[in-house]
């Protein structure tokens, strides 16, 4: 049988023996499944999330977040200090991604080669990037198509004399409704669920949705099986059915939190599993404008400034926009009572800009750590130290300056209570405001690291070709293999590195 099987269609325990099993159907897993199905391999994909189509995407946050995000939209670090936006569906994060598409910067790849013994090169990735860009319709946005929320950041940066540009997006015939983060309602966004996964299915692959991989059974240097539990698509509770896949090669592509968790649940704790997790920790500033911005409509992200990306010796950051829908705003805007509701009442006049800290390049920087909760789910800790605080303060001031230069009435932070900047002379207050856990809103939509690639088994989890250091037929192919943050939105990099790694998996299958 080939196609997409839902959890409620599985009425008996399933045992399968394909050539290849891919756990996770985000950009990494989807492109490996597609490439190997093309090569004639029998491919099975396990995906914990559900299978959704545009008819399911009703543009309501109350529907989208519980269905399309990890922990029903409530994923966070253990102390709640960093909210974690991470997709969970057939297609993984690509279903809810805001479409910003960048190639991995060459100097980032070079640093992996120098410091970690990685073998991937910008030259080796070039063809893969080109194919991905063609397949996903990745094209640069016209400035005329930028919504007012993004335009405010663009114009503000220009007025400050800072570099800024429109981004490239993976869309075709985009209507710019503004709902990328809730699943594209018109199939304009070229997610993995519309591209690489259907292609894999057309070449005989089977995708099992609502199937959560629980553990990998292994002996010596071989993974023998991956064992999972079947979930009900509606309740997301276990149905009692199990799925067992005994592949020749096994690819783990569960993302930077769930991949290390699967290895840890399986007793594969050799090396720094779950260590050095990078998040591009993100702060936001809320700018109030006299004229309507209506940041709930229009392509949610279409400009970016990397003007402050290289602030050595300090951590760099880059600036983008965030969509302004009521639920996200109601969670993020600080305080309660009048402080919260008065800002909410002005939602149409608000522009929200974000700054993403480029983590992973500091001397001795440890980043986050993934461990296991009692129920086996991943628990994330990411302490925010002086390095982060310095970066956040610089980033908040930059965003405030850009919006003041662009004529905002005022710009406020997500501190509790908010720091309100009405003119340049108020900027100093951002230096004084505390940045301890839960004293200021911090987010992440980019999760990386935790199964880093490298040549030294003591310092990395997978080899430079993304094969596990100790288990010969086990591979990790997702953002977790990145030794650092990227300094750009990671989706396109995960596709390209996945496409590159698929060659190695293919060679292994041919040999086995």
């Amino acid at each position: 049988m080939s196609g997409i099987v839902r959890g409620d269609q599985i009425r008996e325990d399933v045992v399968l023996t394909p050539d290849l099993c891919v756990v996770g159907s985000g950009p990494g897993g989807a492109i490996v499944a597609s490439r190997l199905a093309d090569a004639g391999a029998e491919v099975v994909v396990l995906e914990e999330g559900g299978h959704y189509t545009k008819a399911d995407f009703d543009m309501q946050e109350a529907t989208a977040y519980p269905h399309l995000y990890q922990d029903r939209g409530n994923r966070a670090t253990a102390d709640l200090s960093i909210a974690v936006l991470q997709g969970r569906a057939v297609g993984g994060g690509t279903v809810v991604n805001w479409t910003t598409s960048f190639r991995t910067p060459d100097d980032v790849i070079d640093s992996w080669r120098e410091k970690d013994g990685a073998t991937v090169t910008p030259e080796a990735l070039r063809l893969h990037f080109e194919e991905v860009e063609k397949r996903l319709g990745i094209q640069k946005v016209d400035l005329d198509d930028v919504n007012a929320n993004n335009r405010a950041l663009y114009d503000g940066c220009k007025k400050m004399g800072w570099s800024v540009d429109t981004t490239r997006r993976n869309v075709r015939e985009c209507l710019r409704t503004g709902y990328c983060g809730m699943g594209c309602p018109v199939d304009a966004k070229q997610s993995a669920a519309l591209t690489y996964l259907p292609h894999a299915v057309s070449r005989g692959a089977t995708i099992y949705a609502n199937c959560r991989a629980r553990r990998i059974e292994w002996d010596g240097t071989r993974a023998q099986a991956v064992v999972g539990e079947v979930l009900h698509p509606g309740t997301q509770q276990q149905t009692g059915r199990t799925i067992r896949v005994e592949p020749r090669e096994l690819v783990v592509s569960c993302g930077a939190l769930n991949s290390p968790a699967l290895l840890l649940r399986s007793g594969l704790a050799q090396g720094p599993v779950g260590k050095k997790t990078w998040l591009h920790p993100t702060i936001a500033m809320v700018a109030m404008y006299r004229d309507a911005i209506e940041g709930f409509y229009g392509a949610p992200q279409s400009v970016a400034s990397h003007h402050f990306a290289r602030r050595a010796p300090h951590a760099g950051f880059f600036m983008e926009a965030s969509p302004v829908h009521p639920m996200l705003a109601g969670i993020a805007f600080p305080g309660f009572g009048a402080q919260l509701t008065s800002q909410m009442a002005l939602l149409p006049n608000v522009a929200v800009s974000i700054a993403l800290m480029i983590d992973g390049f500091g001397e001795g920087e440890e980043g986050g750590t993934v461990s296991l909760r009692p129920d086996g789910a991943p628990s994330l800790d990411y302490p925010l130290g002086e390095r982060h605080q310095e970066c956040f303060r610089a980033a908040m001031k930059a965003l405030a300056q850009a919006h003041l230069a662009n004529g905002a009435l005022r710009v406020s932070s997500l501190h509790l209570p908010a720091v309100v900047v009405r003119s340049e002379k108020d900027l100093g207050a951002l230096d004084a405001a505390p940045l301890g856990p839960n004293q200021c809103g911090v987010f992440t939509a980019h999760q990386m690291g935790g199964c880093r690639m490298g040549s030294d088994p003591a310092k990395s989890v997978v080899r430079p070709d993304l094969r596990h250091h100790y288990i010969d037929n086990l591979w990790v192919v997702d953002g977790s293999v990145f030794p650092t943050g990227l300094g750009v939105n990671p989706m396109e990099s995960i596709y390209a590195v996945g496409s590159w790694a698929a060659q190695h998996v293919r060679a292994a299958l041919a040999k086995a």
Partner: protein
Amino acid sequence: METRRGFLKKTIGGAALLAAAGAVPLAFRKTRLREPRAPLRFFTPEEYSVFAAVAERVLARGLADMPPELATAAQRRPTPPSAAEVDVAGKADAFLAPLDAASAKELKQLLLLFDNALFSLATGGPPRPFTRMSPEQQDAHLERWATSRLAVRRTGFQALKRLTGAVYYSQPASYASVGYPGPPYELVRTVNAPRSRR
């Protein structure tokens, strides 16, 4: 909501205070109960009542500190429905029903501690449960949690505030009051109809 892990354990004196709560006269200890609209699936009646009281203050309307240029526009918006009208606590109950056991236990401990009269007294508030305080006292109580020097209390505040904000502002009933016209269904329909016939 996985984040109240070890909440009591980490809260200095939390367990001792709960044990000592027996010393407070019964009338002051008891949560003021509210009637749920539907049978509860996650909360006990006490937990439901505490959360409903929190949601009421988190969503209390105010036009404080608004740029004068925009105050008129904001005031012209329809009056926001109250937390009770939207049934924030009932909707939170349904949302939380499938929560894993460990997280559920922590959230329940948080709600009981939040309403504990002795804990309030020990942290500078009146010796009353949150549900029996005046609105002004409740706001001061929330403020003490929100800005506490103890990170775990700030975490507790954030858990309650974010759950309230998520439930309330994701309801179409709240959209008009924040000036959000809602999703562009017409546009999507007109595009999807010809595309699906193709």
